[in-house]
Protein backbone atom coordinates (compact mmCIF):
# COMPACT_ATOMS: atom_id res chain seq x y z
CA UNK A 1 0.00 0.00 0.00
CA UNK A 2 1.36 3.36 -0.98
CA UNK A 3 -1.28 6.05 -0.88
CA UNK A 4 -1.08 8.74 -3.51
CA UNK A 5 -0.56 12.26 -2.22
CA UNK A 6 -3.87 13.77 -3.32
CA UNK A 7 -6.87 15.58 -1.95
CA UNK A 8 -9.45 13.01 -2.88
CA UNK A 9 -10.26 10.40 -5.49
CA UNK A 10 -10.34 12.05 -8.88
CA UNK A 11 -8.34 15.10 -7.78
CA UNK A 12 -4.94 13.74 -8.76
CA UNK A 13 -4.95 14.85 -12.41
CA UNK A 14 -6.84 18.17 -12.20
CA UNK A 15 -4.72 19.33 -9.24
CA UNK A 16 -1.55 18.31 -11.06
CA UNK A 17 -2.58 20.20 -14.18
CA UNK A 18 -3.25 23.41 -12.31
CA UNK A 19 0.02 23.07 -10.39
CA UNK A 20 1.85 22.42 -13.64
CA UNK A 21 0.21 25.47 -15.22
CA UNK A 22 1.44 27.68 -12.40
CA UNK A 23 4.89 26.11 -12.25
CA UNK A 24 5.50 26.64 -15.97
CA UNK A 25 3.43 29.72 -16.66
CA UNK A 26 6.40 31.25 -18.50
CA UNK A 27 6.36 28.44 -21.07
CA UNK A 28 2.80 27.15 -21.32
CA UNK A 29 -0.77 28.43 -21.07
CA UNK A 30 -3.53 26.26 -19.66
CA UNK A 31 -7.09 26.32 -20.97
CA UNK A 32 -9.10 25.72 -17.83
CA UNK A 33 -12.33 24.78 -19.63
CA UNK A 34 -11.01 22.25 -22.10
CA UNK A 35 -7.97 21.35 -20.07
CA UNK A 36 -5.29 21.57 -22.75
CA UNK A 37 -1.92 23.30 -22.73
CA UNK A 38 -0.53 25.56 -25.44
CA UNK A 39 2.97 26.93 -25.96
CA UNK A 40 3.61 30.57 -25.13
CA UNK A 41 6.51 30.77 -27.55
CA UNK A 42 6.83 29.23 -30.97
CA UNK A 43 9.01 29.81 -34.00
CA UNK A 44 7.63 32.38 -36.43
CA UNK A 45 8.63 30.01 -39.24
CA UNK A 46 6.15 27.33 -38.16
CA UNK A 47 3.27 26.80 -40.60
CA UNK A 48 1.75 23.79 -38.91
CA UNK A 49 0.65 23.40 -35.29
CA UNK A 50 1.94 20.26 -33.58
CA UNK A 51 -0.43 18.63 -31.13
CA UNK A 52 -0.22 15.51 -29.06
CA UNK A 53 -2.06 14.06 -26.12
CA UNK A 54 -3.07 10.93 -24.37
CA UNK A 55 -3.83 9.56 -20.96
CA UNK A 56 -2.23 11.13 -17.91
CA UNK A 57 0.25 9.12 -15.86
CA UNK A 58 3.02 9.31 -18.50
CA UNK A 59 4.57 12.57 -17.31
CA UNK A 60 6.48 14.48 -18.55
CA UNK A 61 4.70 13.25 -21.70
CA UNK A 62 2.92 15.22 -23.17
CA UNK A 63 2.48 18.58 -21.47
CA UNK A 64 6.15 18.63 -20.44
CA UNK A 65 7.08 18.82 -24.11
CA UNK A 66 4.95 21.85 -24.97
CA UNK A 67 7.07 24.85 -25.88
CA UNK A 68 9.40 26.36 -28.41
CA UNK A 69 10.89 23.75 -30.73
CA UNK A 70 8.52 20.94 -29.82
CA UNK A 71 4.72 20.76 -29.30
CA UNK A 72 2.31 23.65 -29.76
CA UNK A 73 -0.37 21.93 -27.70
CA UNK A 74 -0.97 18.87 -25.54
CA UNK A 75 -4.25 17.31 -24.40
CA UNK A 76 -3.96 15.31 -21.18
CA UNK A 77 -6.72 12.79 -20.49
CA UNK A 78 -7.62 11.09 -17.23
CA UNK A 79 -5.09 8.58 -15.88
CA UNK A 80 -4.37 6.08 -18.67
CA UNK A 81 -7.43 7.23 -20.65
CA UNK A 82 -7.34 9.12 -23.93
CA UNK A 83 -8.43 12.76 -23.91
CA UNK A 84 -11.94 13.28 -25.25
CA UNK A 85 -12.56 14.55 -28.72
CA UNK A 86 -13.84 17.99 -27.74
CA UNK A 87 -10.59 18.72 -25.91
CA UNK A 88 -8.56 17.69 -28.96
CA UNK A 89 -10.85 19.60 -31.32
CA UNK A 90 -10.60 22.83 -29.34
CA UNK A 91 -6.85 22.57 -28.79
CA UNK A 92 -6.35 21.90 -32.49
CA UNK A 93 -8.33 25.00 -33.36
CA UNK A 94 -6.24 27.03 -30.94
CA UNK A 95 -2.87 26.09 -32.43
CA UNK A 96 -3.58 25.33 -36.09
CA UNK A 97 -1.13 27.17 -38.35
CA UNK A 98 -1.74 28.47 -41.84
CA UNK A 99 -1.25 24.90 -43.05
CA UNK A 100 -3.27 23.31 -40.29
CA UNK A 101 -2.47 20.97 -37.46
CA UNK A 102 -0.61 17.69 -37.10
CA UNK A 103 -1.79 15.14 -34.55
CA UNK A 104 0.92 12.95 -33.04
CA UNK A 105 -1.05 9.98 -31.75
CA UNK A 106 0.15 6.94 -29.84
CA UNK A 107 -1.32 3.78 -31.28
CA UNK A 108 -3.96 2.85 -28.69
CA UNK A 109 -7.56 2.22 -29.57
CA UNK A 110 -8.84 4.98 -27.29
CA UNK A 111 -6.46 7.57 -28.66
CA UNK A 112 -7.19 6.59 -32.26
CA UNK A 113 -10.92 6.86 -31.66
CA UNK A 114 -10.89 10.21 -29.90
CA UNK A 115 -8.33 11.82 -32.19
CA UNK A 116 -10.30 10.36 -35.08
CA UNK A 117 -13.57 11.96 -34.02
CA UNK A 118 -11.76 15.27 -33.43
CA UNK A 119 -10.23 15.06 -36.92
CA UNK A 120 -13.71 14.65 -38.42
CA UNK A 121 -14.86 17.75 -36.58
CA UNK A 122 -11.77 19.67 -37.75
CA UNK A 123 -12.42 18.68 -41.37
CA UNK A 124 -15.98 19.88 -40.86
CA UNK A 125 -14.66 23.21 -39.58
CA UNK A 126 -12.31 23.57 -42.54
CA UNK A 127 -9.10 23.07 -40.58
CA UNK A 128 -6.54 20.87 -42.31
CA UNK A 129 -5.41 18.02 -40.11
CA UNK A 130 -3.09 15.07 -40.57
CA UNK A 131 -1.98 12.33 -38.25
CA UNK A 132 1.26 10.59 -37.34
CA UNK A 133 0.56 7.30 -35.61
CA UNK A 134 3.40 6.29 -33.29
CA UNK A 135 3.70 2.50 -33.00
CA UNK A 136 7.15 1.67 -31.77
CA UNK A 137 6.57 -1.08 -29.18
CA UNK A 138 8.22 -4.26 -30.32
CA UNK A 139 6.50 -6.44 -27.71
CA UNK A 140 3.11 -5.93 -29.35
CA UNK A 141 4.47 -6.68 -32.82
CA UNK A 142 2.58 -9.94 -33.18
CA UNK A 143 0.04 -11.64 -35.36
CA UNK A 144 -2.29 -11.93 -32.38
CA UNK A 145 -2.48 -8.20 -31.84
CA UNK A 146 -4.85 -6.86 -34.49
CA UNK A 147 -4.54 -3.38 -32.97
CA UNK A 148 -0.88 -3.28 -34.05
CA UNK A 149 2.20 -2.19 -32.13
CA UNK A 150 1.55 0.14 -29.20
CA UNK A 151 2.91 3.68 -29.11
CA UNK A 152 5.35 4.11 -26.23
CA UNK A 153 8.76 5.66 -25.56
CA UNK A 154 9.51 6.79 -29.12
CA UNK A 155 6.67 9.29 -28.90
CA UNK A 156 8.87 11.94 -27.31
CA UNK A 157 11.63 11.40 -29.88
CA UNK A 158 9.13 11.75 -32.73
CA UNK A 159 7.72 14.89 -31.10
CA UNK A 160 11.21 16.36 -30.83
CA UNK A 161 12.16 15.56 -34.42
CA UNK A 162 8.88 16.91 -35.79
CA UNK A 163 9.31 20.04 -33.67
CA UNK A 164 12.69 20.67 -35.24
CA UNK A 165 11.27 20.03 -38.71
CA UNK A 166 8.20 22.23 -38.15
CA UNK A 167 10.52 25.10 -37.19
CA UNK A 168 12.04 24.98 -40.67
CA UNK A 169 8.61 25.85 -42.11
CA UNK A 170 7.86 22.37 -43.40
CA UNK A 171 4.28 21.84 -44.60
CA UNK A 172 1.58 19.55 -43.22
CA UNK A 173 1.92 16.62 -45.59
CA UNK A 174 5.70 16.64 -45.48
CA UNK A 175 5.61 16.65 -41.69
CA UNK A 176 3.14 13.77 -41.59
CA UNK A 177 5.31 11.81 -44.00
CA UNK A 178 8.46 12.57 -42.02
CA UNK A 179 6.77 11.56 -38.78
CA UNK A 180 5.66 8.27 -40.23
CA UNK A 181 9.11 7.60 -41.65
CA UNK A 182 10.84 8.46 -38.37
CA UNK A 183 8.41 6.28 -36.42
CA UNK A 184 9.14 3.35 -38.71
CA UNK A 185 12.82 3.69 -37.71
CA UNK A 186 12.05 3.54 -33.97
CA UNK A 187 11.52 0.49 -31.76
CA UNK A 188 11.04 0.16 -28.01
CA UNK A 189 11.05 -2.65 -25.45
CA UNK A 190 10.19 -2.36 -21.76
CA UNK A 191 10.50 -4.53 -18.67
CA UNK A 192 9.24 -4.07 -15.12
CA UNK A 193 10.02 -5.65 -11.76
CA UNK A 194 6.97 -4.24 -10.02
CA UNK A 195 3.62 -2.80 -11.09
CA UNK A 196 2.52 0.78 -10.59
CA UNK A 197 0.14 1.50 -7.72
CA UNK A 198 -3.42 1.88 -8.96
CA UNK A 199 -4.61 5.37 -7.99
CA UNK A 200 -8.05 3.97 -7.20
CA UNK A 201 -6.81 1.57 -4.53
CA UNK A 202 -3.22 2.44 -3.67
CA UNK A 203 -2.40 -1.22 -4.30
CA UNK A 204 0.01 -2.60 -6.91
CA UNK A 205 -1.87 -3.18 -10.18
CA UNK A 206 -0.47 -6.71 -10.32
CA UNK A 207 1.85 -8.90 -8.29
CA UNK A 208 5.17 -10.45 -9.20
CA UNK A 209 7.15 -13.09 -7.38
CA UNK A 210 10.63 -12.11 -6.17
CA UNK A 211 13.08 -12.24 -9.04
CA UNK A 212 10.33 -12.16 -11.66
CA UNK A 213 10.11 -9.62 -14.41
CA UNK A 214 7.31 -8.60 -16.75
CA UNK A 215 9.01 -8.59 -20.14
CA UNK A 216 7.38 -6.41 -22.80
CA UNK A 217 5.15 -4.12 -20.76
CA UNK A 218 3.48 -1.05 -22.20
CA UNK A 219 3.07 2.29 -20.46
CA UNK A 220 -0.33 1.75 -18.87
CA UNK A 221 0.70 -0.68 -16.20
CA UNK A 222 -0.83 -3.57 -18.07
CA UNK A 223 0.99 -6.87 -17.60
CA UNK A 224 3.21 -8.07 -20.42
CA UNK A 225 2.44 -11.20 -22.37
CA UNK A 226 5.20 -13.00 -20.51
CA UNK A 227 7.13 -13.18 -17.30
CA UNK A 228 10.80 -14.02 -17.15
CA UNK A 229 13.35 -14.19 -14.40
CA UNK A 230 15.12 -10.92 -13.70
CA UNK A 231 18.72 -12.10 -13.64
CA UNK A 232 21.68 -9.83 -14.33
CA UNK A 233 20.79 -6.51 -15.88
CA UNK A 234 23.58 -6.94 -18.42
CA UNK A 235 21.96 -10.04 -19.88
CA UNK A 236 18.55 -8.38 -19.85
CA UNK A 237 19.78 -5.30 -21.71
CA UNK A 238 21.61 -7.47 -24.19
CA UNK A 239 18.39 -9.35 -24.98
CA UNK A 240 16.36 -6.19 -25.29
CA UNK A 241 18.88 -4.26 -27.37
CA UNK A 242 19.49 -7.31 -29.53
CA UNK A 243 15.80 -7.58 -30.35
CA UNK A 244 15.58 -3.86 -31.16
CA UNK A 245 18.61 -4.02 -33.44
CA UNK A 246 17.30 -7.11 -35.18
CA UNK A 247 14.10 -5.23 -35.94
CA UNK A 248 15.78 -1.98 -37.04
CA UNK A 249 18.99 -3.24 -38.67
CA UNK A 250 20.84 0.10 -38.72
CA UNK A 251 23.66 0.40 -41.24
CA UNK A 252 27.21 0.90 -39.87
CA UNK A 253 27.11 4.63 -40.66
CA UNK A 254 23.56 5.29 -39.49
CA UNK A 255 23.49 7.52 -36.44
CA UNK A 256 21.40 5.92 -33.70
CA UNK A 257 19.64 7.81 -30.90
CA UNK A 258 19.05 5.84 -27.68
CA UNK A 259 16.48 6.63 -25.01
CA UNK A 260 16.98 4.89 -21.67
CA UNK A 261 13.71 5.70 -20.01
CA UNK A 262 12.50 5.11 -16.47
CA UNK A 263 8.85 4.10 -16.14
CA UNK A 264 8.44 5.80 -12.79
CA UNK A 265 10.23 4.43 -9.76
CA UNK A 266 13.41 2.92 -11.08
CA UNK A 267 16.33 4.79 -9.58
CA UNK A 268 18.70 6.98 -11.51
CA UNK A 269 21.51 4.63 -10.40
CA UNK A 270 19.82 1.78 -12.25
CA UNK A 271 19.10 3.85 -15.37
CA UNK A 272 22.74 4.86 -15.72
CA UNK A 273 23.81 1.27 -15.14
CA UNK A 274 21.42 0.24 -17.91
CA UNK A 275 22.82 2.93 -20.18
CA UNK A 276 26.32 1.58 -19.53
CA UNK A 277 25.21 -1.92 -20.53
CA UNK A 278 23.44 -0.61 -23.63
CA UNK A 279 26.58 1.26 -24.65
CA UNK A 280 28.59 -1.95 -24.41
CA UNK A 281 26.07 -3.86 -26.56
CA UNK A 282 26.05 -1.12 -29.21
CA UNK A 283 29.86 -0.92 -29.23
CA UNK A 284 30.17 -4.67 -29.63
CA UNK A 285 27.78 -4.59 -32.56
CA UNK A 286 29.55 -1.57 -34.06
CA UNK A 287 26.42 0.55 -33.92
CA UNK A 288 27.06 4.29 -34.01
CA UNK A 289 25.52 5.75 -30.84
CA UNK A 290 25.10 9.37 -31.89
CA UNK A 291 22.86 10.77 -29.12
CA UNK A 292 21.26 9.50 -25.96
CA UNK A 293 18.92 10.45 -23.15
CA UNK A 294 18.81 8.82 -19.72
CA UNK A 295 15.95 9.63 -17.36
CA UNK A 296 12.19 9.61 -16.88
CA UNK A 297 10.72 10.78 -20.18
CA UNK A 298 7.66 8.59 -20.76
CA UNK A 299 6.40 7.01 -17.55
CA UNK A 300 3.66 4.69 -16.31
CA UNK A 301 2.83 6.32 -12.95
CA UNK A 302 5.22 4.69 -10.45
CA UNK A 303 5.88 1.45 -12.31
CA UNK A 304 9.26 -0.05 -11.39
CA UNK A 305 10.66 -0.65 -14.84
CA UNK A 306 12.41 0.90 -17.79
CA UNK A 307 12.19 1.01 -21.54
CA UNK A 308 14.85 1.13 -24.21
CA UNK A 309 14.13 2.97 -27.44
CA UNK A 310 16.43 3.09 -30.44
CA UNK A 311 15.86 5.50 -33.31
CA UNK A 312 17.82 5.26 -36.53
CA UNK A 313 18.33 8.93 -37.30
CA UNK A 314 18.95 8.88 -41.02
CA UNK A 315 18.52 11.82 -43.40
CA UNK A 316 17.87 15.12 -41.61
CA UNK A 317 16.53 13.41 -38.50
CA UNK A 318 19.58 14.13 -36.36
CA UNK A 319 19.58 17.82 -37.30
CA UNK A 320 15.92 18.13 -36.35
CA UNK A 321 16.61 16.27 -33.12
CA UNK A 322 19.50 18.62 -32.32
CA UNK A 323 17.52 21.80 -33.05
CA UNK A 324 16.96 24.06 -30.03
CA UNK A 325 14.09 23.25 -27.68
CA UNK A 326 12.70 24.97 -24.60
CA UNK A 327 9.92 23.16 -22.78
CA UNK A 328 9.24 22.33 -19.12
CA UNK A 329 10.86 18.90 -19.45
CA UNK A 330 13.39 19.27 -22.27
CA UNK A 331 15.72 22.16 -23.02
CA UNK A 332 18.82 22.55 -25.12
Amino acid sequence: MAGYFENGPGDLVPDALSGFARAHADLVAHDPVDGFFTARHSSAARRVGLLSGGGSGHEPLHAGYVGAGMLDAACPGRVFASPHNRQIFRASGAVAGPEGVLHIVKNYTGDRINFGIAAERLADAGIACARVLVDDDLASDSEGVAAGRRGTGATMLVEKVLGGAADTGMGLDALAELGTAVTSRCRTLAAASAAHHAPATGEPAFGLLPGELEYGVGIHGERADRTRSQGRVGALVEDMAGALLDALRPGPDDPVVALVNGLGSVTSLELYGIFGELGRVLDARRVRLARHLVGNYVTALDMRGFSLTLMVADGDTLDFYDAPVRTPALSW
Partner: protein
Amino acid sequence: MTTDTFDGLRTHDWMRRFAELVYATEAELTALDQQAGDGDFGTNLAAGVSAAGPLLDRMGGPVGPAEPLGAMATAFLDEIGGTSGPLFGLLFQALSRAAAGSGPTLTTAALAEGATQGLAAIRRVGDASPGDKTLVDALTPAVAALRAAEGASPATALAAAADGAWQGVRDTASLTARMGRASYLGERASGIPDPGAVGVALFFASANGAVRALAPAPEPG
Protein backbone atom coordinates in the same frame (compact mmCIF):
# COMPACT_ATOMS: atom_id res chain seq x y z
CA MET B 1 -41.48 -2.18 -12.52
CA THR B 2 -45.11 -2.53 -13.34
CA THR B 3 -45.40 -0.88 -16.70
CA ASP B 4 -44.19 -2.14 -20.00
CA THR B 5 -44.25 1.28 -21.62
CA PHE B 6 -40.97 3.18 -22.11
CA ASP B 7 -42.05 6.79 -22.14
CA GLY B 8 -39.66 9.66 -21.43
CA LEU B 9 -39.92 9.21 -17.66
CA ARG B 10 -39.32 5.47 -17.72
CA THR B 11 -36.37 5.92 -20.07
CA HIS B 12 -35.03 8.61 -17.74
CA ASP B 13 -35.38 6.09 -14.87
CA TRP B 14 -33.52 3.51 -16.90
CA MET B 15 -30.57 5.85 -17.35
CA ARG B 16 -30.60 6.61 -13.61
CA ARG B 17 -30.66 2.95 -12.73
CA PHE B 18 -27.81 2.29 -15.12
CA ALA B 19 -25.84 5.05 -13.41
CA GLU B 20 -26.47 3.60 -9.96
CA LEU B 21 -25.48 0.18 -11.18
CA VAL B 22 -22.25 1.56 -12.59
CA TYR B 23 -21.40 3.26 -9.30
CA ALA B 24 -22.22 0.07 -7.39
CA THR B 25 -20.04 -2.11 -9.60
CA GLU B 26 -17.29 0.41 -10.39
CA ALA B 27 -14.68 -1.36 -8.28
CA GLU B 28 -15.51 -4.77 -9.77
CA LEU B 29 -15.37 -3.39 -13.31
CA THR B 30 -12.04 -1.79 -12.60
CA ALA B 31 -10.73 -5.03 -11.12
CA LEU B 32 -11.68 -6.85 -14.32
CA ASP B 33 -9.88 -4.23 -16.40
CA GLN B 34 -6.92 -4.57 -14.09
CA GLN B 35 -6.61 -8.24 -14.90
CA ALA B 36 -6.97 -7.80 -18.63
CA GLY B 37 -6.34 -4.14 -19.35
CA ASP B 38 -5.16 -1.02 -17.58
CA GLY B 39 -7.55 -0.91 -14.69
CA ASP B 40 -9.63 2.14 -15.46
CA PHE B 41 -12.80 0.87 -17.12
CA GLY B 42 -14.94 1.27 -13.99
CA THR B 43 -13.62 4.79 -13.51
CA ASN B 44 -14.22 5.71 -17.13
CA LEU B 45 -17.77 4.42 -17.19
CA ALA B 46 -18.55 6.07 -13.86
CA ALA B 47 -17.15 9.34 -15.21
CA GLY B 48 -19.56 9.05 -18.14
CA VAL B 49 -22.71 8.50 -16.13
CA SER B 50 -21.59 11.16 -13.69
CA ALA B 51 -21.12 13.67 -16.54
CA ALA B 52 -24.62 12.75 -17.75
CA GLY B 53 -26.10 13.35 -14.28
CA PRO B 54 -26.50 17.14 -14.48
CA LEU B 55 -27.89 16.88 -18.02
CA LEU B 56 -30.49 14.38 -16.82
CA ASP B 57 -31.28 16.56 -13.78
CA ARG B 58 -31.77 19.64 -15.88
CA MET B 59 -34.34 17.88 -18.06
CA GLY B 60 -37.39 19.88 -16.89
CA GLY B 61 -40.90 19.31 -18.21
CA PRO B 62 -42.26 16.44 -20.29
CA VAL B 63 -39.66 14.82 -22.52
CA GLY B 64 -39.67 11.93 -24.92
CA PRO B 65 -37.41 8.86 -24.62
CA ALA B 66 -34.94 10.41 -27.07
CA GLU B 67 -33.91 13.10 -24.59
CA PRO B 68 -32.46 10.99 -21.73
CA LEU B 69 -30.67 8.82 -24.29
CA GLY B 70 -29.42 11.97 -26.00
CA ALA B 71 -28.12 13.35 -22.71
CA MET B 72 -26.11 10.18 -22.23
CA ALA B 73 -24.78 10.45 -25.79
CA THR B 74 -23.68 14.06 -25.30
CA ALA B 75 -21.96 13.32 -22.01
CA PHE B 76 -20.11 10.26 -23.25
CA LEU B 77 -19.15 11.67 -26.65
CA ASP B 78 -18.17 15.13 -25.49
CA GLU B 79 -16.71 14.67 -22.05
CA ILE B 80 -15.31 11.16 -21.80
CA GLY B 81 -12.11 9.95 -23.33
CA GLY B 82 -10.62 6.49 -23.15
CA THR B 83 -11.72 3.74 -25.47
CA SER B 84 -15.08 2.87 -24.02
CA GLY B 85 -16.38 6.42 -23.47
CA PRO B 86 -16.96 7.47 -27.08
CA LEU B 87 -18.02 3.92 -28.05
CA PHE B 88 -20.80 3.90 -25.47
CA GLY B 89 -21.59 7.41 -26.67
CA LEU B 90 -22.08 6.15 -30.21
CA LEU B 91 -24.53 3.48 -28.96
CA PHE B 92 -26.52 6.05 -26.97
CA GLN B 93 -26.53 8.46 -29.90
CA ALA B 94 -27.95 5.86 -32.28
CA LEU B 95 -30.59 4.78 -29.76
CA SER B 96 -31.57 8.41 -29.18
CA ARG B 97 -31.85 9.09 -32.90
CA ALA B 98 -34.05 6.01 -33.42
CA ALA B 99 -36.18 6.94 -30.38
CA ALA B 100 -36.72 10.43 -31.76
CA GLY B 101 -38.25 8.85 -34.83
CA SER B 102 -40.56 6.53 -32.89
CA GLY B 103 -42.78 9.01 -31.03
CA PRO B 104 -43.57 9.49 -27.31
CA THR B 105 -42.76 5.94 -26.26
CA LEU B 106 -39.95 3.61 -27.30
CA THR B 107 -40.95 0.82 -29.65
CA THR B 108 -39.19 -2.51 -29.90
CA ALA B 109 -38.53 -1.73 -33.55
CA ALA B 110 -36.85 1.57 -32.64
CA LEU B 111 -34.71 -0.15 -30.02
CA ALA B 112 -33.66 -2.79 -32.54
CA GLU B 113 -32.91 -0.18 -35.18
CA GLY B 114 -30.97 2.08 -32.79
CA ALA B 115 -28.89 -0.73 -31.36
CA THR B 116 -28.13 -2.02 -34.87
CA GLN B 117 -26.93 1.41 -35.96
CA GLY B 118 -24.97 1.84 -32.74
CA LEU B 119 -23.21 -1.46 -33.23
CA ALA B 120 -22.38 -0.53 -36.82
CA ALA B 121 -20.91 2.81 -35.74
CA ILE B 122 -18.87 1.18 -32.97
CA ARG B 123 -17.47 -1.32 -35.44
CA ARG B 124 -16.66 1.41 -37.97
CA VAL B 125 -14.82 3.51 -35.41
CA GLY B 126 -13.22 0.78 -33.31
CA ASP B 127 -12.60 -1.72 -36.06
CA ALA B 128 -13.32 -4.76 -33.87
CA SER B 129 -15.11 -7.90 -35.05
CA PRO B 130 -17.06 -10.40 -32.98
CA GLY B 131 -14.59 -12.75 -31.35
CA ASP B 132 -11.99 -10.02 -30.69
CA LYS B 133 -12.96 -9.97 -27.01
CA THR B 134 -14.50 -6.52 -26.79
CA LEU B 135 -17.88 -5.02 -25.99
CA VAL B 136 -18.83 -5.91 -29.55
CA ASP B 137 -19.18 -9.49 -28.31
CA ALA B 138 -21.93 -8.45 -25.91
CA LEU B 139 -23.60 -5.94 -28.19
CA THR B 140 -23.85 -8.31 -31.16
CA PRO B 141 -26.07 -10.93 -29.42
CA ALA B 142 -28.02 -8.14 -27.72
CA VAL B 143 -28.82 -6.65 -31.12
CA ALA B 144 -29.80 -10.07 -32.45
CA ALA B 145 -32.16 -10.58 -29.49
CA LEU B 146 -33.80 -7.18 -30.01
CA ARG B 147 -34.37 -7.95 -33.67
CA ALA B 148 -35.76 -11.39 -32.88
CA ALA B 149 -38.17 -9.85 -30.33
CA GLU B 150 -40.16 -8.08 -33.05
CA GLY B 151 -43.73 -7.89 -31.79
CA ALA B 152 -42.84 -8.29 -28.13
CA SER B 153 -43.01 -5.36 -25.69
CA PRO B 154 -39.91 -3.19 -25.28
CA ALA B 155 -39.47 -4.49 -21.71
CA THR B 156 -39.50 -8.09 -22.89
CA ALA B 157 -37.23 -7.23 -25.78
CA LEU B 158 -34.73 -5.47 -23.49
CA ALA B 159 -34.76 -8.44 -21.10
CA ALA B 160 -33.91 -10.68 -24.05
CA ALA B 161 -31.17 -8.25 -25.07
CA ALA B 162 -29.73 -8.43 -21.55
CA ASP B 163 -29.75 -12.22 -21.66
CA GLY B 164 -27.99 -12.14 -25.01
CA ALA B 165 -25.43 -9.68 -23.73
CA TRP B 166 -24.69 -11.79 -20.64
CA GLN B 167 -24.21 -14.80 -22.89
CA GLY B 168 -21.76 -12.68 -24.88
CA VAL B 169 -19.95 -11.75 -21.67
CA ARG B 170 -19.58 -15.42 -20.79
CA ASP B 171 -18.19 -16.11 -24.25
CA THR B 172 -15.55 -13.39 -23.94
CA ALA B 173 -14.05 -15.20 -20.95
CA SER B 174 -12.85 -18.02 -23.14
CA LEU B 175 -11.59 -15.78 -25.94
CA THR B 176 -8.06 -14.52 -26.53
CA ALA B 177 -8.22 -10.77 -27.10
CA ARG B 178 -7.18 -9.37 -30.47
CA MET B 179 -8.27 -5.74 -29.89
CA GLY B 180 -8.02 -3.39 -26.95
CA ARG B 181 -5.45 -3.55 -24.21
CA ALA B 182 -6.17 -7.16 -23.35
CA SER B 183 -4.70 -8.13 -26.72
CA TYR B 184 -1.22 -7.22 -25.43
CA LEU B 185 -1.57 -9.98 -22.86
CA GLY B 186 -2.04 -12.79 -25.36
CA GLU B 187 -3.23 -16.02 -23.73
CA ARG B 188 -2.78 -14.54 -20.28
CA ALA B 189 -6.13 -12.72 -20.39
CA SER B 190 -8.09 -15.83 -21.21
CA GLY B 191 -10.55 -16.87 -18.52
CA ILE B 192 -11.30 -13.24 -17.73
CA PRO B 193 -14.52 -11.75 -19.16
CA ASP B 194 -14.18 -8.49 -21.05
CA PRO B 195 -15.08 -5.50 -18.85
CA GLY B 196 -16.57 -3.46 -21.70
CA ALA B 197 -18.87 -6.36 -22.56
CA VAL B 198 -20.03 -6.46 -18.94
CA GLY B 199 -20.78 -2.74 -19.21
CA VAL B 200 -23.04 -3.37 -22.20
CA ALA B 201 -24.88 -6.14 -20.35
CA LEU B 202 -25.39 -3.87 -17.34
CA PHE B 203 -26.90 -1.25 -19.62
CA PHE B 204 -29.56 -3.58 -21.02
CA ALA B 205 -30.15 -5.31 -17.68
CA SER B 206 -30.85 -2.05 -15.89
CA ALA B 207 -33.77 -1.30 -18.23
CA ASN B 208 -36.00 -3.68 -16.32
CA GLY B 209 -35.23 -2.95 -12.69
CA ALA B 210 -32.53 -3.10 -10.14
CA VAL B 211 -29.55 -5.34 -10.78
CA ARG B 212 -27.50 -5.95 -7.71
CA ALA B 213 -24.40 -7.69 -8.89
CA LEU B 214 -22.24 -8.51 -11.86
CA ALA B 215 -24.23 -11.75 -12.21
CA PRO B 216 -25.51 -12.75 -15.61
CA ALA B 217 -29.11 -13.00 -14.38
CA PRO B 218 -30.98 -9.68 -14.33
CA GLU B 219 -33.99 -9.38 -12.07
CA PRO B 220 -37.01 -9.19 -14.32
CA GLY B 221 -38.89 -5.88 -14.05
